[in-house]
């Protein structure tokens, strides 16, 4: 058991180290304001990443989340501003649409055996294209209810804010952890990712679970879209481009294996926070121009992954991969199943 949460602990350790280094350099890092910002600014990414975690644990991938976020924003903005819907009604409707969209992708993946990467890439094009068709411009959302909601926040002692969207993020996180570890659906997802053929033979309802996991992911992407719309009070068809890659990176940094079967929702939270720290660090520094920003972000990511590797690798030393099969037995066995 301990060996399985080792990546999680390593990730936590790196997070703490990074945070302390940041604090050392910029005293403002220690304020609740920065902590509150972490949660608020990364909440939509975090929510999407929780959905992505499930998909990746199930051995799939979902490239459509960024586009679904954008579509949701545009849809909400139009629904509220032009079609006169109440924000709650619009949200409920888009969550349904999101879930249906995910279910459709899941069905295509399961029934037609189209690789998830491609099915969701098509989903990405569709949702993004759909938002362009709805509107090319960004549309502000101006509704008293929305304004009220975005004014809900808890103020920490030194003016940091725990916002409503951060609250939603935390709720999603907790629910995600419960689904992952305390429901059959969650365990079936792990089983499918561990070895799809074996899961089928063990009686896991693979079809239902595949569709379910993409439904969940798109549902959460739509929720992330609502949060994003709340966060920016607008809908913009070019919003959240490339967020899927950020989400995937957060999930993987959090110790989830892309080969499926192994991972933690809590790890994803850490992954998101680590991205937040890197970004805040670069922002606080303020001396990096555009290209150095990219290089430093990439290098910090690299550094982080290497530290994590060292911490989790056998005997604490960096084991070079001279013995490919052995460093990842689970991954290897999970994929070598003979076809049914």
């Amino acid at each position, binding site marked *: 058991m301990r060996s399985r949460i080792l990546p999680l602990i390593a990730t936590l350790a790196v997070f703490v180290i990074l945070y302390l280094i940041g604090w050392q350099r910029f005293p403002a890092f220690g304020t609740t304001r920065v902590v509150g910002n972490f949660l608020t600014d990364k909440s939509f990414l975090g929510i999407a990443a929780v959905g992505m975690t499930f998909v990746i644990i199930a051995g799939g991938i979902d490239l459509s989340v960024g586009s679904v976020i954008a579509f949701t924003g545009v849809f909400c903005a139009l629904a509220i501003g032009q079609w006169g819907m109440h924000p709650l009604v619009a949200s409920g409707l888009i969550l349904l649409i999101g879930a249906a969209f995910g279910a459709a992708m899941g069905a295509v993946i399961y029934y037609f055996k189209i690789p998830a990467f491609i099915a969701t890439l098509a989903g990405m094009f569709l949702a993004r294209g759909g938002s362009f068709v709805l509107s090319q411009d960004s549309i502000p959302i101006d509704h008293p209810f929305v304004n009220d909601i975005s004014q809900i926040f808890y103020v920490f002692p030194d003016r940091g804010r725990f916002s409503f969207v951060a609250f939603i993020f935390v709720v999603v996180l907790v629910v995600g952890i419960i689904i992952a570890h305390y429901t059959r659906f969650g365990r079936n997802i792990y089983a499918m990712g561990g070895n799809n053929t074996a899961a089928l033979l063990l009686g896991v309802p693979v079809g239902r679970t595949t569709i379910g996991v993409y439904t969940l992911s798109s549902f959460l992407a739509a929720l992330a879209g609502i949060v994003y719309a709340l966060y920016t009070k607008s809908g913009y068809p070019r919003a959240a481009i490339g967020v899927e890659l950020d989400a995937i990176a957060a999930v993987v940094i959090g110790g989830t294996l892309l080969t499926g079967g192994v991972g933690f929702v809590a790890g994803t939270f850490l992954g998101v926070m680590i991205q937040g720290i890197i970004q805040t660090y670069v922002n606080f520094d303020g001396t990096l121009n555009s290209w150095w920003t990219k290089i430093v972000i990439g290098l910090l990511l690299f550094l982080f992954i290497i530290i994590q590797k060292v911490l989790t690798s056998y005997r604490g030393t960096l084991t070079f991969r001279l013995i490919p099969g*052995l460093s990842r037995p689970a991954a290897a066995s999970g994929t070598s*199943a003979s076809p049914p």
Partner: protein
Amino acid sequence: MGFRELMSDAAEKQTPVLQTSKLTKWFGPVRALYDVDFNLYAGEVHAVLGENGAGKSTLVKLITGVYRKDSGAILLEGQAIEPHSPHEAQAYGISTVYQEINLIPTLSVAENLFLGRQPMRMGFIKTGEINSRAKALLKTYNLDIDASHTLSAFSVAVQQIVAIARGVDMSAKVLILDEPTSSLDAHEVQLLFEIMRSLKARGISILLITHFLNQVYEISDRITVLRNGEKIGEYLAASLPKRELVSLMLGRELVSVTDEGNTNGKAAHQNERSFLQVEGIARRGMLEPLDLSVAKGEIVGLAGLLGSGRTETAKLIFGVEQKDIGTIYVKGQKTTIRSPRQAIGQGFGMCPEDRKIDGIIPELSVRENIILALQAKRGWFKTLSRKRQEEIAVEMIEAMRIVTPDSTKPVGQLSGGNQQKVILARWLASQPELLILDEPTRGIDVGAHAEIIQLIKRLCADGLALLVISSELAEIVEYSHRVVVLRDRKKLTELTGDDISEQMIMHTIAES
């Protein structure tokens, strides 16, 4: 046995619990199953026997909805059923342990045992209870392991027991066991049989597939023989002599299933210089320091119970795992072996125990699988011509009687036993000087079993050095010149000459 006769008489009159009629399945041009009528009565153990590729697993997979039948019917208690997935089959009360270990390597042992049927409270899984119940369940199989560990950390044998435990624990009406004992030793097999008997007593019907004929006679009431996808007949176990059974399965007489007398009289090899000499190799938590030597033209058997460290010994020698200490001499030269690649460079070959994970490349063709090790040895650029590859493949397919329409079929689509033969063929094609065989006859049918034993002997006669691990003591005794007995990851002793006998090995293990 009057009792058995009586039982089956009674069975004849009742409707079968599970019945197939005219069940047919094609895989492209391959007729895997044709017009098979199969009857399983309440409270019986019914063995389905046949050669590798006869269609046994296909029958099972049709019944449990893994494959969709082409025609025919499946009836459960007289009602036609059409399961679309193992999930549905389970709902009908059919529980199955498939031939290859089909568990989730990344989940814990306990979770594997209770996947899909976890104890729940208010819609949530009671995680604590899973572990404690798993522990209790495995206790009945004499397995004292930490069930919260990831499954992949355990040996094939342990995994097989876990799979059986799960299947048995779930069985409601019908339990299907497809080669459950292929990795188990005699002790575990007895344990399983005891459990099967108690299930039988509870009225549960059991379909058993195995290649161990002794086991068939020990436990089963009725036998159905398949050959080439067709049903040859259904027999009462008690009234079918073994010899006849074998010829029914093979469609021919099997000459000298075991050609009498073992080969270990030739102790002459002892004096020859060893091809491989191992001194004090060990790895913490895996193997205590161990000495071993194998000469050319000699077969050294590794005997021991499950978990005794036989596979580990092989892995350390072949460079799959790194040893902490110890030295390996090849032809008297001290050598370092840190990977199979280096081992192969020294003229080694190793047929691993877990064919599905360590053996086959399922997507590649039979031909490619066979020439793989040879090609890897030759490097990237010294390619074998297509013609040469084809020759080797065809030669091996014939020599080992691999059932495949042609050499282009992906190995993943062969039957289990034939996959095993392909891996053996791969190593033979690589022309090694030392061949390490870990459970080479696992899942191999009677006919082929005898052939492989012959093959091992012939290879030895041709001057190969062989290190063979097998859970079948009879087999080890038959061909070994020397037997190294292991227990608890330690070498106990080395038996030679007339000391090599099943009793002696058992005795050595039990003693000390």
